[in-house]
């Protein structure tokens, strides 16, 4: 396949949500000596943007979006590995978000949807999973240096954990380095304000808007 055909096929694999094809094409692109940054810019990003726009307009749905995000994730890993091997620097995305559901809470789906939508909008997402202890959050903020830490708690019982993580971030001297946004059924606007969170949203689409707003304010400060 020509360079153009490879890039178009990779983009199509993202749009159609075909993780196997996406990884295979990313490998072919590396083998063909095509600049991996170009593949990210011309295939992955426009592909996932198209899916995200389709989701926003109601033409495609969460399962499509999640599978496209999986395809993007697999292809991205292969391309970034090549960038690192060649000694290049990875291009900074729109912003980096570390996500997780707090300790004691096993609710995964809402947080996963938020993560998927954020990646579809160009964020780099590090998903720590569910039942995440506060020291793991603190370590992730230290190691990944995200722009935003997103935490979810569906249960009122575990909402207090959100406060404890922000306190732990302060104790570690990391609180000012990151915007904290929270969401989930147990969270209210008042609660978010009471723990000094920078942002709060009840659903994934609002979450993306809040994340973009937080980045803009970060840029301007």
């Amino acid at each position, binding site marked *: 396949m020509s360079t153009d055909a490879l890039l178009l096929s990779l983009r199509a694999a993202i749009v159609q949500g075909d993780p196997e094809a996406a990884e295979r094409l990313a490998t072919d692109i590396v083998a063909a000596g095509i600049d991996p940054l170009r593949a990210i810019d011309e295939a992955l990003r426009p592909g996932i943007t198209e899916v995200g726009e389709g989701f926003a307009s109601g033409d495609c*749905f969460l399962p*499509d979006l*999640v599978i496209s995000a999986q395809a993007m994730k697999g292809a991205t890993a292969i391309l970034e590995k090549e960038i690192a091997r060649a000694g290049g620097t990875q291009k900074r995305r729109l912003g980096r978000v570390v996500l997780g559901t707090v300790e004691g809470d096993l609710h995964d789906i809402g947080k996963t*949807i938020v993560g998927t939508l954020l990646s579809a909008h160009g964020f780099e997402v590090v998903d720590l999973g569910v039942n995440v202890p506060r020291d793991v959050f603190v370590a992730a903020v230290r190691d990944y240096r995200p722009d935003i830490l997103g935490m979810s708690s569906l249960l009122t019982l575990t909402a207090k954990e959100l406060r404890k993580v922000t306190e732990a971030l302060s104790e570690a001297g990391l609180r000012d380095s990151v915007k904290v946004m929270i969401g989930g059924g147990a969270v209210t606007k008042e609660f978010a304000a009471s723990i000094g969170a920078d942002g709060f949203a*009840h*659903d994934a689409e609002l979450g993306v808007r809040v994340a973009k707003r937080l980045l803009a304010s970060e840029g301007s400060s």
Partner: protein
Amino acid sequence: MPLAGHTCKKPCDGLTQEEVERICRGALEVLAEAGMVVAHPKALALLQEAGCGVDQAAQRVRFPRDLVQWAIAQSPETFQQQARNPDLTLNWGGATVYFGAFPGFTSLDLATGERRVSTVEDLARLSRLCDAMPEVHTICQPTPHLSDKPPEVVMEWVLATTFRNTEKTTMGAAFGGCSKWVVEMCTVLGQQVHGSICMASPLTVPVDQAQGVLDYAGAGHPLHLLSGPMRGASGPATMAGTLVLQTAEILGGHVLGQLVRPGNGAIYVGYATPMDMRLGTMASGSIDVGIMGAASGQIARYLGMPSAVFFPMTDAKLPDAQASYERHLQALLCAQAGVNHIMALGGLENEGAFSPEQMVIDNEVCGMIGKVLEGIRVDDERLAVDLIKEVGPIPGNYLGKEHTRRHWKEDYFLPKVSVREGYDAWLAGGSKGVLERAAEIASRLMATHQVAPLSPEVDRELDRILAAVEAEKLGTGGSSHVN
């Protein structure tokens, strides 16, 4: 391919077989001993010739049981009604469930909320809205009211306007002697109507309705034989008694139709309602209307006829919560009973008024009812045992699985009107309730939905027929109003 509609695989029967038989035996006894008034000389002659006892002076006809049985045996259990677009042809009978809309004779203006008798232009707009609704499989005409046409010629204008604004099949009424003109229009258009014949309860076939049987059956259009006793007033107060009367009236019309054209398609149409004994009003939204509608479907099946009900209805004056619970309970009951045609979508106020918002909401609910009829598909792929094992416990999930993407649409119903977003997103979207959302959809469709126009020749033919109607009924040279 004819319109698929929905399929009721397992009708929910409310009556036992013995109860259905007793109702039908009662109807035959009523027809044999009390008989019916048939106010039409030619119809009387046909019935007399076939062996009915006829009192010419009283126009009273008594139907021998074997003649009624003959008529039942003649008529087909299933048949087609041709649309001019073959994809919209109806397959009447069997397990098929169709919905029909009734763009009523008064309409609620979307912009102002004003309730007014429709004009030709209103009816054109409402017919286009019904045309745009996927759950409207066929369209029924209202009884004759148009504010901008003389009463004598309204029915013909209603039909011509509907033909011009939908490719879907329509009902053909018989009021005011319109049936011969509707038949002529159908010949020009190359399509069939279901000829609606409305019995007057108790036990009377008015002259225009008898003429409708002669015209529609004579030209091979299926008959839509409707009986609507008002319980406690023009029918017995009891549901069982009114089912006897309703069945007798329908079978009386059926005999006449089969004499005109043996083997012609005929549909059993239930329209019985109770009278509210506090007010003297027709209580059309009553839950027993739905129970009677379901029973009508079962009786028709026993008689080997397709069934229809002039339901769902409501007594509500606005598209409100009452309109919804009355209409949608009735529609669900009738659909689950396997009634082949549930016909009065979009109506309020005993179907006296048509609301565009209600139409859009009914369309959505009928989609949900279709989902109810579909039921649950159980096979290896859908049982998903292997998938459940693969995903395992948390943090496994199903959102990113190909199986989800492959199957979720077939087992979900995605509403267009219902509010589904979270509270904050709903607030951000303007806090719109279901009525505002339905009104927006209706306005957009009425402004933008296109219906394939009639050819100029056919359109001119409709004008010619309308001019002939006006010349005959009004003694004028015809109207210049073309829509």
